[in-house]
């Protein structure tokens, strides 16, 4: 009985993750860029999510969506939390899609100005 409950729980979790992933994949990077600006993410993380003294780097290669989502909704650290009332699930998924779309930058070893 116990093992069955665990199995059901795992299945539910897997379904949930698939759902998150599907939602992220279906999201629009173009809309996400607009939402990234509209909701003020750029203020601390930069227009390309590169980060800086006020906020961590978000892109390229963002952290898993569920980790990001949980943090955005519940953070008690320097970043203020964004509830669903002010940042919808759809906008958050679009923002994630935008972060995923940001390509890797050049190899720092190949940039002469960073090797002066």
């Amino acid at each position, binding site marked *: 009985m116990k093992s069955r409950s665990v199995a059901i729980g795992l299945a539910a979790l897997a379904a949930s993750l698939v759902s998150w992933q599907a939602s992220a994949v279906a999201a629009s990077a173009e809309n996400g860029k607009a939402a990234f*600006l*509209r909701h*003020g993410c*750029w*203020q*601390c993380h*930069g*227009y*390309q999510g*590169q*980060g*800086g*003294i*006020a*906020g961590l*780097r978000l*892109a*390229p290669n963002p952290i898993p969506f569920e980790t990001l989502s949980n943090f955005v909704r519940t*953070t*008690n*650290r*320097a*970043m*203020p*939390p*964004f*509830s669903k*009332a*002010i940042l919808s699930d759809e906008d958050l998924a679009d923002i994630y899609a935008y972060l995923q779309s940001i390509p890797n*930058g*050049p*190899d*720092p*070893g190949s*940039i002469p*100005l*960073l*090797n*002066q």
Partner: protein
Amino acid sequence: MARKDTRRQGSAVKGPDVSRRKFMAGVALTGAATTVSAQDAVNAAAAETAATPARRPSARRPDARMAAAETGTPKELAKAVGPDGSDFMVDVVKTLDIAYVCSNPASSFRAFHESLIDHGGNKKPEFLTCTHEETSVAMGHGYFKATGKPLMMLCHGTVGLQHATMAIYNAWVDRVPVICIGGTDLDAAYRAPGVPTIHSAQDINALVRDYTKWDDQPVSLQHFAQSFVRAYKIAMTPPHEPVMIALDLGLQQEPVRAHERETLYIPKYVPTAPPQADANAVKEAARLLANAERPVIVADRAARTPNGMRLLVELAETLQAPVIDQRGRMNMPNTHYLNQTGRTAALIGNADVIIGLELGDYWATVNGFVDNGHDGIGLNETRIKPGTKLIGINSTGLVTKSNYQDFQRFQSLDIDMAGDAEASLPALIEAVKAAISSDRRAAMEKRGEALKKAYADGHQRTKAAAAVAWEASPISTARLAAEIYAQIKDLDYSLVSSANVSGWPNRLWRMEKHHNWLGGSGGAGQGYSAPAAIGAALGNRDIGGRFSVSIQADGDLMYTPGSLWTAARHKIPLLSVMHNNRGYHQEVMHVQRLANRRNRVAALGMDRSPIGTSIENPDIDYATLAKSMGYWSAGPIKDPAELGPTLKRAVQVVQSGQPALVDVWTQPR
């Protein structure tokens, strides 16, 4: 430097012995002679009461002569003959080798002004015309940090000083001496009516007393001589701070009084030795440091001079201890493997002994504040392990005042030494060397090897972080810093001010000399960077051979845009590169934070950021602004590929002796 302690020669000219105060004394005596005594008044009233019951005044009405003396306009004063008081004042100033007086002209110091340029020949000090008193003070702020020498600023004691106050507060928090002089006309009966009277006050110094180290209002020329030399001496004794002298217009305009002509002298200035930490406390601190497993040195405004930097390196190498440079000054070369500023959180969290040198905020060094708590209170959390020993050397406690809260939160220390860190370091280094036992040396060497590896790893992480968004437009602040450095790395550069660009210059540029980095504003008051950079560039020009560069925030420049004219007018070579993020960015984030906390969507209006925090619509054309005041300028640059060639041209202009400004549209931070 001229140092006089001789009695000043009296004037050979013997003119009428007229002074305004003696004239007034005569009036007072005359008044007394014609005034009815109190007893006379009582007797007269009693007699009149007996004659008639009608109500009468308790004293006789003033006769015509008395009324005229009390209310009439005084006669024109005779033209005084003799050496002018303000000429003597300039003689006093000249003994202190002050290079410039930064000022916006004003009637309340007109006599002193005239003496500076005519009696003093407009040399040492030379009058620099500023378009705002905030600029006058901030130029002195920057000049001192580049040269170690203070400047003077002159202002109206009321409206001018009101303009100057924020910049004086910045200097106070940043521990920088500026000699502030405010004109005022104290004599209410004889000063000009109207605006000059509006511009006078009983005690102008009260406005800045909370954030100046000392002030005075001399009432004689000898008093001025003593007070000016005293003010200079106090300002130049660590902890350095601004001082304030109120300069009475009457005293400036009067001739030297007869009784002073043979006795006036200029006191000799002798620097005061800086305060040092207590010897026994130093030994105990050294014992803790020498026996620590994971000691950490934190420095903020520790290295006042290049020698302070050398001493800090020696202490760190002796202990093989990491240094966290909080960058109030250039404390530790960023090319030294013991500069571990990038690992601040980890080092503080693991330390068993921490020594803080001239920290502006010890509490925030060992504690965290997260602006995200319930009800806006925020979260407070310690960053250190239980039992970590805390040591401090700080001169701030010697000048702490009550009103303004720049002393920060209270932090208890295990050993707290009142004294100047730089002056105390030689004794501490010797004590540490004496306290290190032979069995500790191997552990220290091993610690040093681990720190070398951590430094190398950190350097690679920095480069990787800088490469992100390398091609972005608006231009990333890392790219901005790297492009500037490419143009100045072979010059003896001095970064004279830096906007909030995520610390990239300190992370990417080789900073090994004390003047490579001058620190920040101190009080974080907007309007510092533009004029302070110009003041520092002036100092670097005078020293010779240094190239001054500033990363200039847009919001900061708009407080004192007139400072650009001063730089062009006086041919001060400075390259200003705009960090034009088109917003008051700190406030952008604050409003967003509060909107989130209240579960509301921040209103943007027509802008990118919450209403009231943007500097756009219309966008400001800083290149045109600078050009209109005599600068060479370019921009706005939005394409990162255009930045390097434009900066190259600007560097050439600055090397020819002119100021130049390049406007760059940048990422927020």
